[in-house]
Structure formats: C-alpha cells, structure tokens
C-alpha cells in the first residue's frame, strides 16, 4: 500500500478497461449506487473506436437499441456525435430494419469522457492493472484441466506502480489491449490498438490463476488523408434524409445536421495480382500470427486468395470525424508490409494518389474461453469477477457495450444479493449473444447477426423498450424519466392499435382503397391477367377492420390515413412503426411466441451448479463431459450444447424428476 488513504482505494466495483464495455459497466454500476472506478492505460482509450467509425448495422443496431432500453449510454452517445445516419434493410420487413450511424470518433470519445467524469460515484484512473488480488479457497485436489470449479474470490486489483485497490467486484474489459501485438508484414510490435500502450502483465497473471486464455486476432484497414483522394472516381453514399435516432430518449427530437458522405469503390485485377504476388509476406501467411481471425471480417488478402474467381471486391471510404482529415478504408484490412499496401491501394480508383497516414495492421490479443463464464458473465473460476467485451471472445463495439452493461448490472446484483439478469434468446439479441458465447463458445471473434436469432420477428429494434425497459426499471438501471417516457409511449401505441382493430369504413370506400393500392399503384408489377383477377377478388372482398387491412403486404399505416376519418393521434416515427408491425405481423408474431412457449418449459427446469453429471446413469460420455465443462443453468441451455443429444436431455429430465421425488419423500 502506498501513500493513498485506505478510503481512496476501496471501491464496490472496479472496471479494468474503458472501451465500450468498460464505459457501460462503470456507468451502470455507478448509477445503481455502487462506488465505482474505471482503470485505463491511457485516457485516449476511453470509448475509442480503433476500427470502423460507425455504430450499428444489422444486428448491431438492435443491440444498441437494447442497451439503450436498459439504461445504457451507447445510444445516447452516438445520437450526440453522429455525422451520417442510415436505416439499412428498408426493402425488407421491419424486423430486420437496422440503424447505422457514422460516428465522429473524436467527439464520440470526448462526449463519453465527459459523461463519465460527471457521473456521481464514478472515478476514472489512468493506470495499468497488472494483477488481481484474490482469496483462494482451500483446494482438495488440483483439477486444473477443468475450469468449472470455483477456485476463489477476487477482492481487488494492483496497478503497475504498485498501488492496490480493493473491490467487492471486478469487471474485466480489456478489449484488444491484453498482451496486444500488432503485425504489419514482418514487423511485430507489442502494442495496444492505434499505437496505445498495451496491457503486458495481466494476461500472464490470469493464465497463472488458471483462466483458460486464448489468442484471437482481428485487423483494421489503412487510414488515408482526406484531400489526397479523388472523389470523382468513387460513388457517393449519402445518409438518409429522415434521421431516426438510436435512443428512445431522443425519439421526439428532430435532427437537422449536415451529413457527410461515404464513398464506394472497387478493387480490380491489378489489386489482386499485387496481393497474390506478395501473399507470403503477409503476417497471416508467414505463420507469425497464431490467433484466430473472424470469418465475417476477412482481410483483403484472405478475400482475394479464397475467392479467386471474383474480379472485384467493394470497399467504402468513410470519414473518421469532422475535425480530422483521416479517412477509413472499410473492407480492406491487411497485414501485408507497408510497401505492398502502398502498391495495391494505389490500384484502386480514387485512391491512386492517396497518402496513407496509418497502414493497415492485424492485432492479436488475449481473451478468455467464454465457456468458463456463467450466463451472468461472472467467471466460474473466481467469484465476483465479471468479464465483458472482446475479452470474452466477441468483436464489435456494440457486442462489447451490451456485455459491459450486463456485467455491470450483474456485479451490482451479486453485491446486493439479488438474482442475476439473464436475458432469454426470445427476449433480446443480448440474450442470444451471451447465451451463444457461454453455451456454445466461439472459435473466432464473435459477431452478432440477425441470423443467429431464432425469434427474429420478436426481437425488433422498434420494440426494444417494450422488451427491456420494464426489466431495467425493476433492477434500477433505468431512470424514472426513461420509465415514464416508456409508459406514455406504450399506452399511446396500444390505444392506437386498439383503435385500428375495431376501425372500419364503409364497404365502397374500402374497396376503392384496395383497388388503388393493390391494382392501380401495382400496375407495372403485374400482368393484365393478374390485375383482372385482383379486381374481381376485390369486388367480392368483404369489409375488414383497419388492422386486417394492414396485413396486406402493399398497405402501410401511412396509406390508411387516406380513408381514416378519425383524428389520428400524433405518433413519432418509431411509434408508427411499432403500431404497424404489431398489427401487420400479428399472425407470425403469435406463431413465434407459441414456439417460445413450447421451449419455455425446458428453460424453467433449473440445473444445480454442483450437479455431478458423471454419476448420472444413461448419459453418453460426450454429454457428461460437455455438461460438466459448461454447467448449463437450465435444461434448455443444456439442449443447445453441441454434443448433447435429445436422448441425453430425456435422461437428464428423468434424473431431475427422480431427485425431486427423493427429496420430497425425505422431507415428508
């Protein structure tokens, strides 16, 4: 202990790392009343975006909405600092509409830093954490191969200058800083992202403590000087005219900003030839990198060599902010040497004379096998030690933020003696993300995708507040203000939906409306014969309520205004979407809900943490091992583990039943 007073170094919650996970974790813990400290190696790293300058996208946009609905900061922060906004997938249905915003990286960082500094109960330290303080539980036998046995409890952290901070709970969110190594061709540098200092000791200490650590890698493309690019050779990508904010708190705000554009260009055969000629110089191919990279975010040399029949790959040039002249070259990450990078980038239309201010690089880092985590994100090895973000094998700012928020909430739950918040797969993308990580594990940096969710129609971005805000309010992560807003919105949406369920107009108006929207306006999409059949159908159609009319694919809530003789309530864009989706997809939504009900029974059968799977007769060997390693919380979770068959699940159910009866007869 140094000259710090005992009081100064004692916290309820200590967060290691101030990236997207760390910020959410620290903020929510402090807001829920915990005395909290966040540690980072460099203040620059607070909410830093070391890779793409954007927030959201398919699946990711849903996560941001969910973070927001639970009282997190990401949505509010990007709403303050975006420079372009776009709703993706609008040609598809509302369940997969996804918001994405280009961020001003520097302002995003500044805003978050300001929020953290002004947060009550929350201290921010620029100091590297090099070790954990732990109490080890008496060990009957050394069972180091298994990571499911609780070995002890974390009680604090140690900084590189020898200070110790005691903590009731520690949340680790080290991102790509932990034992970070940067690769550019043959060049290998021990470094965190963007040239910031890495965390060099903690990874080894975690290994010594028995954490199952792994190496993952990811990459980022080159940054170029704005004025050295030729924009006439690229295709402009503008933002949406109508801006939809991320945060439910900003729903009624109108945004009138000058949006900046992104630019689209393509590689060509020359680019590919240069890359293939030099492929062995890539750090990926030289064998220097041992870490596993993500399939969904391959480097350009990966794309070119794996898909040799493709004669072009697209790339986007994206501004990193308003006060910087750095441009980000999305889709072109690489670990080739700098001279090769110069050569191949120069073959791309628009980039011929580009000045590269930072070359593309690959980065390798330590992370933990997420199978060693509980669904609460607490480690199975050490109590009161929570893990979030890239440390858990995920990738992406949004995935990190979501885990940080949940880890923060659950640290508070644990310290206040309450049950952890575990979101189900039918409740939130956050539930899908965490369940995938802790149940299935991952062999590459994990990215959320809407295809990973079984109940996509239920998990929409328009209804994230309806799914989660109530839960957050009960736990204490949602403010009174947000909750009141939510309730007001909910009642507005529900009463409008009710009105539409009973609203009708006279049959002639109804049929004329259908003729206009299903025939006249569809003329160029249909043959004369189809049109004629449709007209006949409409002439015989019986009158319908507005909610039934809405089920017709070509009719929108806006369209119905034409025949609506009531005074319509004033609704925000998001509220209108919610009303429309609720009614339009009612049948499908109910179908999915009944699927969920069927599985709920298994999800409500809990499995004891100390269940001895090896003693259960009838379980296959593989199932015994997997179940012992992963220790699922419920039978439902057990059924998703690969290697556990339906027959194994039946055996488990029988075992549980038997045990239950034996216990009952004992107490009787």
């Amino acid at each position, binding site marked *: 202990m140094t000259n710090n007073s005992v009081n100064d170094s004692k916290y309820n919650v200590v967060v290691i790392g101030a990236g997207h996970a760390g910020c959410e974790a620290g903020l929510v813990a402090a807001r829920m009343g915990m005395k909290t400290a966040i540690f980072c190696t460099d203040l620059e790293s607070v909410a830093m975006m070391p890779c793409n300058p954007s927030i959201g996208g398919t*699946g990711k946009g849903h996560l941001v909405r969910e973070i927001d609905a639970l009282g997190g900061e990401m949505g509010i922060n990007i709403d303050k600092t975006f420079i372009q906004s776009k709703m993706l997938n609008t*040609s*598809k249905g509302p369940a997969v509409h996804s918001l994405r915003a280009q961020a001003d990286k520097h302002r995003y960082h500044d805003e978050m830093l300001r929020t953290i500094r002004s947060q009550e109960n929350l201290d921010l330290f620029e100091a590297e954490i090099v070790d954990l303080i732990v109490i080890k539980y008496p060990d009957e036998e050394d069972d180091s191969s298994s990571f499911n046995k609780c070995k002890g409890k974390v009680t604090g952290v140690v900084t590189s200058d020898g200070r110790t901070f005691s903590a009731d709970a520690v949340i680790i969110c080290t991102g790509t800083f932990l034992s970070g190594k940067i690769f550019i061709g043959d060049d290998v540098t021990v470094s965190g992202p963007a040239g910031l200092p890495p965390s060099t000791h903690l990874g080894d200490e975690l290994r010594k403590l028995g954490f199952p650590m792994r190496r993952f890698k990811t990459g980022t493309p080159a940054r170029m000087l704005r004025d050295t690019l030729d924009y006439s050779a690229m295709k402009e990508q503008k933002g949406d005219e109508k801006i939809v904010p991320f945060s439910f708190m900003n729903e009624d705000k109108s945004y009138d900003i000058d949006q900046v554009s992104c630019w689209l260009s*393509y590689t060509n055969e020359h680019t590919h030839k240069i890359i293939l000629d030099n492929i062995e110089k890539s750090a990926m191919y030289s064998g220097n990198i041992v870490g596993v990279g993500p399939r969904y975010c391959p480097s350009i040399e990966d*794309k070119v060599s794996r898909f040799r029949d493709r004669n072009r790959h697209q790339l986007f040039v994206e501004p990193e902010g308003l006060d910087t002249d750095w441009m980000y070259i999305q889709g072109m990450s690489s670990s080739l040497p700098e001279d090769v990078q110069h050569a191949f980038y120069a073959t791309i239309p628009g980039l011929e004379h580009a000045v590269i201010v930072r070359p593309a690089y690959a980065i390798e880092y330590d992370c933990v096998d997420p199978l060693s985590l509980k669904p609460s994100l607490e480690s199975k090895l050490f109590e009161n030690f929570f893990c979030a973000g890239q440390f858990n094998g995920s990738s992406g700012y949004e995935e990190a933020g979501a885990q940080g928020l949940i880890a923060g909430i659950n640290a508070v739950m644990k310290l206040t003696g309450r049950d952890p918040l575990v979101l189900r797969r039918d409740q939130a993308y956050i539930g899908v993300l965490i369940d995938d990580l802790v149940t299935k594990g991952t062999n590459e940096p994990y990215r959320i995708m809407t295809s*990973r969710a079984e109940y996509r129609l239920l998990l929409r971005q328009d209804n994230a507040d309806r799914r989660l805000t109530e839960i957050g309010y009960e736990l204490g992560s949602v403010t009174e203000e947000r909750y009141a807003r939510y309730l007001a919105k909910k009642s507005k949406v529900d009463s409008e939906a009710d009105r539409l369920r009973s609203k009708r107009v006279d049959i002639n108006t109804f049929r004329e409306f259908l003729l206009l929207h299903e025939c006249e306006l569809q003329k160029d999409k249909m043959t004369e014969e189809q049109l004629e059949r449709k007209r006949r159908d409409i002439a015989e159609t019986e009158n319908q309520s507005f909610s039934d009319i809405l089920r017709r694919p070509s009719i929108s809530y806006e369209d119905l205004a034409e025949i609506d003789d009531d005074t319509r309530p004033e609704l925000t864009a998001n509220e209108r979407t919610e009303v429309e989706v609720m009614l339009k997809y009612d049948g499908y939504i109910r179908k999915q809900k009944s699927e969920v009900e069927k599985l709920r*029974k298994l999800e409500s059968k809990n499995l004891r943490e100390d269940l001895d799977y090896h003693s259960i*007769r*009838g379980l296959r060997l593989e199932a015994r091992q997997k179940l012992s390693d992963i220790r699922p919380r419920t039978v439902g979770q057990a059924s998703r583990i690969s290697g556990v068959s339906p027959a194994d699940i039946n055996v488990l159910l029988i075992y549980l039943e038997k045990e239950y009866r034996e216990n009952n007869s004992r107490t009787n």
Partner: protein
Amino acid sequence: MADTIAAISSAPGEAGIGIVKISGPACKDIMKKLMVSFPETIEPRHAYLSRVSRDASSPDSEIIDEALFIYMQAPNSYTGEDVLEIQAHGSNVALKSILQAVLDSGIEDVRMAEPGEFTKLAFLNGKMDLSQAEAVIDIINAKSDLSLSIAESQSAGRLGDTIRDIRDTLLDILAEMAVNIDYPEEDEDEIGGDGFFSDDDDNGIVGQLRWVLSDVQTLMETASIGRIAREGIRVVIAGKPNAGKSSLMNALLGEGRVIVTDVPGTTRDTVEESVSINGVPIVLVDTAGLRTTDDKVEKIGIERTEKAMASADLIILVLDGSQDLDDKDDTVLGYIEKMNSEHLLVVINKDDLGRSVSEEEVRAKLPQATIVRTSLIEKGVPEAVKLVSNAVRDMYDLGSINAKEMNIITNERHMRMLRNAEMNLDEAISMIQSGEPLEVAELSVHYAYDSLGKIIGEEVGEEVLNTVFSKFCLGK
C-alpha cells in the same frame, strides 16, 4: 397452448384390440369431432361406445370403425395432461385410419407423438412412478440406440441421400436469404440481390423453392407403395349377386394362407380378409352391398361399395358373362367408370354357360381395364389364384421394389415431416410472391429445413452461417 400428441400405443401387428392414445388439451375436441354418438356429459374414466367418423358433425362423413372412448382428465392420467384412449379393433388398418382422422381433424396443434414422448410428458408432469424411473432410462437408451441404428441404416441408403440433397439446396437458399438480410450493403455481384428474390425469375428463389417442393412431393408419392409393402394390397371385389364374387373370394381364401379370421371391417356391409398370395400380402374386401333388393338399404350399400372402391389398390369386377348386362351391372359399371381407377380387373365369369357379354362392350365403358374371360366354378381355385396374382404382378411391379434402391416412405413420422415441409415450402413461395418480407418467408423455409432434418436425425445448427461464410466473400 401445449401441443396435443397422438400415436398408436398398442404393440404393432394384429391383435384383438388396439389403442390410439392422445394426450393434450384438445382431447375433448377430438372426441366431439370423431364420436358419432357424442355423450352429453363426459365422465372421466368411463367407456363410451361410439362409431368413429372423420367428422361426426357431417352425416356424409365416412364411418371408420366402432370403438370405445375413454377420457382421463388432467392431472389424473398417465401423462398428467388430458388423455383420451380410443380402443378399437386391433387391425393395423383400422388403427391407422383412426390416428389419421385425429391428425387430420383440423384441430389446432394436434400432431404425431415423437417416440417416447408420452413417457417424457409423464416425467415432465411428475407422473412417473419412482420405481419405474430406472427402468425407463434403460428403455429410452434402448430406443435411442434403435433409432440410431435405424437412422444409420437410412442414412446409408438412398432416402438419406435424397433428403440431404434437398436440404443442401434449401441450405443454399437459406444462406442466400441470410446474407441478404445481414449484409444489405454487399456487392450485388456477390450476393443474389433483389433479382434473386423476385418471383418472375426461374433461377431465382421461387424457382428454386419450387424444385425443392416438387422433390418433396415426389417422395411423398412413394408413400402409397410403402403402405402396400407394409399393409398389403387392398383388393375390392365388386359385382352383382351370383355373378361369381363369392366363388372368387372363397377360392382365394381357401388357397391363400389366412392370416386372420373375419374382422368386422370398416363398415357393417363389407368384410375384410387378409391373405398372402404367392408371398404378396393382400387384403380382400368383399362388398356385400348389392345383395339386398330393398331400395333404401341398397342405396346405402352402394355408397359403401363406392367408398370401399375408392380406397382400393385393385378393383376386381365380376360379371356374369352368360347373361346380358342388366341394370344392376350398369349401376356397378357406372360407379367403377366414375372411379376411374387405374388398377382394374374385369372377370367375365361363367364362360362355360354362354357368351352374352362381349369384351368390347366392357372396354367401351372401362378402357383401362384388364379383361379376362373364365369360368371360376369349372376351373376352380388355381384359376382364381392365377387371375389375382397376375393382376397384382402386372399392376404393381412388386418384384422390382427394392427398398434399398428406392426411396420409399414407409414411416408415418417421415410422412408427417414431409407434409410439414411441403406446407412450409408452399407458404414460403406464396409469401414471396405476395410481397411479404424476406425475413418472414425465411421462417417458413427454415421450418421446412428443420422438418426434413428430423427425418434423418439432423437439426439446424450453425450450418446456415457456415454456408454463408464459405459461399460468400463478405467483409466489413
């Protein structure tokens, strides 16, 4: 709401009594649908005798059998849910018809039970006796080993390959859908783009789904061959009294190895006998409907005959060749003509007594029929056996059916899964055509993929994403 599940719960094979067991909230609805004499109040654990119909509310609906209905109210039942037992005559045919009527009842969420599912429910609802627990573990293990070996033998065969081929195509479609949803900004050169999802492109998604659908339907069509192999060929003998029907029937019964004695069949007025002729299982159905002259009864008889003929694999019409065709012959001929059955044998009998009926006369009405002229009494049993086995051999090339080479659906559960897949594919196609959003149509394709996977014991996991990443060059 929980599913209602149904299955034949008595041991397979012929027995005096067989049981169709149903568990779930729809039990009472099913009773109402099937019982011709539906009691005013249903006492649990009382046996109610009633004729069984596919739809008791409709007087025209076919009577399948007569059976005892026993209703057990939750939680006092084996599974802890409402349970209905329908105890019927033990013939496989009758039980299957009742099960089919339950499954086709149109009541929501009624489905075939998975193997071991009643027991599983019993456990879930805390109904299983403790002393049975250990024993059931062993049974379930044995079952899964068995189903494993069945799955293995099938996956080594053509059926597995066919299902896998169909699923591979669906997987590509799903990957195409996934990539379009999750990577909306990818290069259109790389992913299918909007063109792929428009319905006027045969190479597009609708065209591909139609191919898959027709593959599934082709498989479903083999089920009738599968049924014949399993349950025997249903042969209906028709004709007016004294034309020689009984001689034919008796000859076949005398010669054929009788498997069971008289089983009161689907209706009072038809009699079924199962025999094996030259190794081919045959169910003989004697239609007695034309025996009486009382008009009203005759009408009912003819209707029944018509129904029996509709479900026949082979119709044998016996005519008295020694006399001119009369009204009664014309009535039967008319029905058979209407039936338009492919598999039709006309026996012009009593050749020794004269030739008043010409082959041309018959052919004019029934051009597809095989026509034989003979004298059953004179030529006796060998002639009868030859007639029928030749007809069966010609019409159903059973010798060439080799289950190892052909995809024949013999399993009720497989059929169920195929039907499920068919329905979902149909739904997906019409959703895409009517402009429903991609992610909604995707659900139906996914369900179809899952259903097919259940046939070969594979369910969806990470395959779609793996295909996405191996097929498409994506990058952000």
